[in-house]
C-alpha cells in the first residue's frame, strides 16, 4: 500500500544527508492528469512529492541526461549521490545503466516504490476529457480510483486505464534498491507477447505497409530517444554530421533508418518501460518494435536485461553455447 | 550583388590562388577567389567587416569573414581554419578549382563614421582575418584617418597569419605594427607575451581613437579589461562576433546572441551594445 507519509519522511531524511546532491521524485503536475519530475534539494520541498498511478515518468533517464557542467577554477566537482525514486521498470533501467557503467553504484541512492501499474494518459484523457484541474489517483483493490474536479470519484478496472506495458508487467517491484518504501506487490502481469505475435503473423507486405504508414508521421523530435534511460550516448550516431549516417530529412526512408537503428541499439538493453511510446507526439507504437526485439533476445538467448547488476551487457558478451541456428 | 533573386542561391567562383598561413592540425589557408560571372564580379560590393557564405554543393556552407578590403581589387579573400566537414573540404581546393560564394552578409565597420580618427586593431591568432580588411582599407584611404596601429599576436611565430604583409607593415612609415608571440623563440626580436600585455606595452591614448579587437574569447576578455584600464569608452571599442550560422540572412534563428542576430545585426558590434547582452560573451 502506498504510504505517502513514509515517502515524504524518507525523502526528507535523504535530502538532508550530506552525501546526497538532490532527490528526483514525482509531484503533481500543472494540470489534469499530469505529473512532473521534481528535483528536490531542500527538505522543505518534499511535501509536494507523491506516488500514484499517474507517475508514468521513468526518472532513471535523468541519471544520464543531466549535463556535467565544467567545473569553475578553484572549485571541485560535486560528486555527491543522486537519490532516485524508482518503480519496478525504472529500477531495471538503473540496473542496466550499472551493468554498462553508465552510472556508478555509489553515485545513486535508490528509493524503491513497488508499483501496481501507471495509467496511459491518452486513454484516460479520452475517457474524461483533457481536464485542467489537477486530478488525484490511487490504486484501490485492483482498480484505479480517480478523484476528479468537483469531488467526483470514479473507479475503473485496471484493464481500461493502465498502460499496455503495465498490464503485461512481470517486474512491478524494484529489483534493486537502497530502501523499499512499502511492501512488495503481487505480480499481476504475464507476458505472452500477444501484440508482437499478432504483427508477426502478418505478411511482409502488410508489415511493411503498416510501418511505412507509421514512420511517415514521425517528426524526428527525438523525444523517444531523449526520454529513454538507455539512450545516453553523448554523441548519438543519429545526430552525427561528419559523416552523416542518417539525413536530417524527414522522409519515410530516413525516419525508418532512425527508428530501426535506435531499436537495434536497444536490443537486449531495452527494459520495456514504455516511455518512448508514451512521449511520442504522433502516437507511433514504438513498443511493438522494442518488444519484438525483446522477445527475440528472451527466447533465443534466455536473457532479460536490467535484472542483475552483475551480468555482462548482452550485446557485448558471448557464450560458446549461444544459439546460432537462425543466423546460419 | 547580394542574390540572384533567391538569397540562398550561391554564385560560382574560381580559386585563383591559395596558400597556407599556418600549418598543423587546425591550419589556416587563404583563398583568393574570383567570381566566374562577369556581371557578379563587376557589381559585387562589400565593406570591411562583412562576411560571405562559402562552400561546396554536397558538403555544405560556412560563414567566413571576407578578409580583403574592396580597395584591393575585384577579388575576394577568405582565410579559413580547418575545423569541420566544410572547412576540411575547402582545404582540398587548389588553384583552378571552384567554390560557391554568396553574400555579402552582416554589417560592416562604420568606416565613414571613423574618418578622422585613430584606428587600432588588436588581433590574436585567426582573429586577424576579419581585421585585415579594415587595415587594408585604412591603408588605401590613409589620408581619411589620422593614424593606424596594428597589434597582433599568436602562440608561436609559425601561428602568425599574413606574415609577409605584417613584415611590410612594420617597415611602413605611417603605420605602426606591434607583434608578439607567447613564448620566447630564437630569432624573434619583437615583444614576448600575451596580446593584452602587448596592448599595455603600446599604451595607446584613447583620445579620438577607435579600438577593434578580434581573437579567442579569453584574449578578448583581457583586452577589454585593459582597454578600460586605458580609459577607452564603451563606444570606442568594437569587436566582431561569430556563431554557428546556416542561412546568413536572419531566418534560421540560430546565430542569435541575446536579441542580436550575428548575421544581420552583426558581426560587427560596439562594446556599448554588447555590454547589455550577457550571451554575447558566452
Amino acid at each position, binding site marked *: 500500500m502506498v504510504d505517502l507519509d513514509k515517502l515524504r519522511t524518507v525523502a526528507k531524511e535523504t535530502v538532508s544527508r550530506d552525501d546526497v546532491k538532490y532527490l528526483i521524485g514525482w509531484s503533481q503536475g500543472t494540470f489534469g492528469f499530469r505529473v512532473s519530475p521534481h528535483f528536490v534539494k531542500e527538505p522543505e520541498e518534499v511535501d509536494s512529492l507523491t506516488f500514484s498511478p499517474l507517475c508514468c515518468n521513468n526518472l532513471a533517464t535523468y541519471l544520464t541526461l543531466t549535463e556535467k557542467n565544467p567545473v569553475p577554477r578553484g572549485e571541485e566537482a560535486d560528486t555527491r549521490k543522486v537519490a532516485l525514486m524508482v518503480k519496478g521498470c525504472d529500477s531495471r533501467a538503473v540496473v542496466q545503466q550499472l551493468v554498462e557503467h553508465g552510472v556508478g553504484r555509489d553515485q545513486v541512492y535508490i528509493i524503491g516504490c513497488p508499483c501496481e501499474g501507471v495509467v496511459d494518459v491518452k486513454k484516460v484523457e479520452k475517457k474524461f476529457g483533457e481536464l485542467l484541474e489537477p486530478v488525484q489517483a490511487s490504486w484501490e483493490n485492483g482498480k484505479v480510483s480517480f478523484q476528479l474536479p468537483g469531488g467526483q470519484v470514479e473507479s475503473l478496472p485496471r484493464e481500461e486505464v493502465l498502460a499496455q506495458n503495465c498490464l503485461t508487467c512481470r517486474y512491478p517491484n524494484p529489483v534493486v534498491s537502497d530502501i523499499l518504501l512499502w511492501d512488495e506487490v503481487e505480480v499481476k502481469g504475464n507476458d505472452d507477447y500477444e501484440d508482437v505475435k499478432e504483427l508477426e503473423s502478418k505478411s511482409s507486405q502488410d508489415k511493411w505497409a503498416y510501418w511505412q504508414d507509421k514512420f511517415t508521421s514521425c517528426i524526428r523530435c527525438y523525444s523517444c530517444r531523449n526520454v529513454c534511460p538507455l539512450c545516453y550516448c553523448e554523441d548519438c550516431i543519429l545526430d552525427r554530421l561528419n559523416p552523416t549516417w542518417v539525413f536530417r530529412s524527414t522522409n519515410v526512408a530516413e525516419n525508418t533508418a532512425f527508428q530501426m537503428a535506435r531499436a537495434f541499439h536497444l536490443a537486449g538493453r531495452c527494459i520495456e518501460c514504455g516511455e518512448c511510446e508514451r512521449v511520442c507526439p504522433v502516437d507511433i507504437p514504438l513498443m511493438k518494435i522494442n518488444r519484438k526485439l525483446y522477445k527475440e533476445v528472451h527466447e533465443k538467448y534466455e536473457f532479460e536485461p536490467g535484472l542483475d547488476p552483475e551480468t555482462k551487457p548482452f550485446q557485448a558478451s558471448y557464450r560458446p553455447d549461444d544459439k546460432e541456428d537462425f543466423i546460419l | 550583388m547580394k542574390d540572384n533573386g*533567391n538569397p540562398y542561391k550561391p554564385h560560382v567562383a574560381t580559386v585563383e590562388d591559395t596558400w597556407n598561413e599556418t600549418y598543423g592540425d587546425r591550419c589556416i589557408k587563404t583563398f583568393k577567389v574570383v567570381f566566374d560571372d562577369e556581371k557578379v564580379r563587376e557589381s559585387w560590393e562589400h565593406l570591411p567587416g562583412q562576411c560571405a557564405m562559402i562552400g561546396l554543393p554536397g558538403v555544405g556552407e560556412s560563414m567566413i569573414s571576407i578578409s580583403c578590403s574592396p580597395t584591393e581589387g575585384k577579388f575576394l579573400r577568405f582565410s579559413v581554419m580547418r575545423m569541420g566537414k566544410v572547412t576540411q573540404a575547402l582545404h582540398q581546393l587548389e588553384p583552378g578549382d571552384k567554390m560557391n560564394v554568396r553574400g555579402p552578409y552582416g554589417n560592416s565597420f562604420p568606416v565613414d563614421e571613423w574618418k578622422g580618427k585613430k584606428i587600432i586593431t588588436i588581433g590574436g591568432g585567426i582573429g586577424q582575418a576579419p581585421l585585415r580588411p579594415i587595415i587594408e582599407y585604412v591603408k588605401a584611404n590613409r589620408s581619411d584617418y589620422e593614424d593606424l596601429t596594428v597589434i597582433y599576436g599568436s602562440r608561436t611565430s609559425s601561428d602568425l597569419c599574413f606574415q609577409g604583409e605584417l613584415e611590410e607593415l612594420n617597415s611602413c612609415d605611417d603605420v605602426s605594427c606591434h607583434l608578439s608571440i607567447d613564448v620566447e623563440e630564437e630569432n624573434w626580436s619583437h615583444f614576448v607575451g600575451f596580446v593584452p600585455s602587448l596592448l599595455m606595452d603600446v599604451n595607446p591614448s584613447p583620445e579620438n581613437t577607435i579600438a577593434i579587437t578580434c581573437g579567442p574569447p579569453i584574449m578578448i576578455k583581457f583586452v577589454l579589461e585593459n582597454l578600460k584600464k586605458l580609459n577607452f569608452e564603451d563606444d570606442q571599442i568594437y569587436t566582431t562576433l561569430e556563431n554557428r550560422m546556416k542561412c546568413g540572412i536572419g*531566418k534560421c534563428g540560430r546565430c542569435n546572441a541575446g536579441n542580436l542576430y550575428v548575421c544581420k545585426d552583426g558581426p560587427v558590434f560596439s562594446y556599448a551594445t554588447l555590454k547589455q547582452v550577457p550571451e554575447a560573451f558566452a
Partner: protein
Amino acid sequence: MEHLKLSKDKLGDFVAKLGDKEVLVPQKEGEALKFVPLTGDSVPELDYANTSVPPKNAVFPQTETMLRFEWGKMETTAVTGEAKEKVFFGVRPCDARAKVIVDKLFTWDEKDPYYVEKREKSTVVGLACAEPCSNCFCTSVGGGPASTEGLDVLLTDLGESYLVQPLTDEGQSLCQAASDDLEKAAEGDVQAAEKVHQEAEKKISRQIDTGGIPEGLPGLWENELWEKVSQSCLGCGICTYLCPTCHCFDMQDEVEGFDGRRCRTWDSCMFSEYTMHASGHNPRPTRRERTRNRINHKYSYFVDKFDVIACVGCGRCISLCPVNIDILDILSKVKEAL
C-alpha cells in the same frame, strides 16, 4: 463584406467548388492529426479541437529542398516556382495568427522565396473556436477564439450551419466561386455567431498577464528560475516542432548517388548541438541556457524586433510536453521574479 451562411450539408459542395486548388483539412496521417490534402469527394470533418502538427508544415515544410545540384558540379538550381495554390480549411484563429507572426521574420529584409511563394499561394479559411482547448491561453497574448488575423474567411459553427465571413479579397472570391451554396446571413445568425465567440472566450481559463515580461526578461538572465524550470527538460524537439510560431531550421546538403540537394529541415533550439561550433565550443551547453534562450526569444527578442510576442497561446507545448514543462508556469515564475 457581407456575412453569408453555409448549411452543413452543403459543406462538401462548397469545398468541391474550390476548384483546382489543393484543399488541406485536418485529418489523421498515421496517428497524428495534421493538415493534409483532401482526397476525392470526402467532406472535411471539422469536429476537432486542434491538430497536433500545426498547419505551418504546408508553408514551411519539415523538409524542403531549396537547391538541386549534381554531385561534382558547382551549378545549383533553385527549386522555386513549384508552389501550388492551396486552401487551408478549418484552421483555428491561433494558427492563422501564428502565420502572420512568422511572416514578419521570413520577409525581414531578404524575403525567403520558398516561404513567401507558398504563403502568397495560400488562402486560409478559419474556424472559430466554440470549445477552446483546455491549455489554450490565446487571449493572454493578443489572440482570441474568433480572431481574424491571418484569415481570409472565418467560419463560425451555428449548429446546423456555419456563418461565413469573408475578410479579404481572396476570401471574397472564394465565396463568390461557391455562391450557389451560400445564402445571405440574417441578423440573427450574426448575433448567434457573436454569442458563440463570447461564450468561447469565457471558457478560456488559463490566463497570464504578459505586461512587463518582454522588458523585464533580460534582467532575469542569471536568475535561479531557469535552473529550476529546465531540470526536467529532456531536450527533445516537441515544444518547438509543434509550435505554430517556431521557425528555426537547419540547412543540410544531402547526396544520393549523383543527385544532390540542399534542403532545409526543422531544427530546434532545445537540441544540444543547435549552437555547437565546429571547434566544439557551445555557447549554450546545458538545457538551462537553451530554455532561457527559448523563452527570451519568444517573449522578448521577437518583441524587440517585430513588436509582437512570438506565441499565440495555442497550448500545444503544454499538452504535449512529456515532462509537463508548462510555459504558463515558467511565465508566472518570471512575473514573480520581476
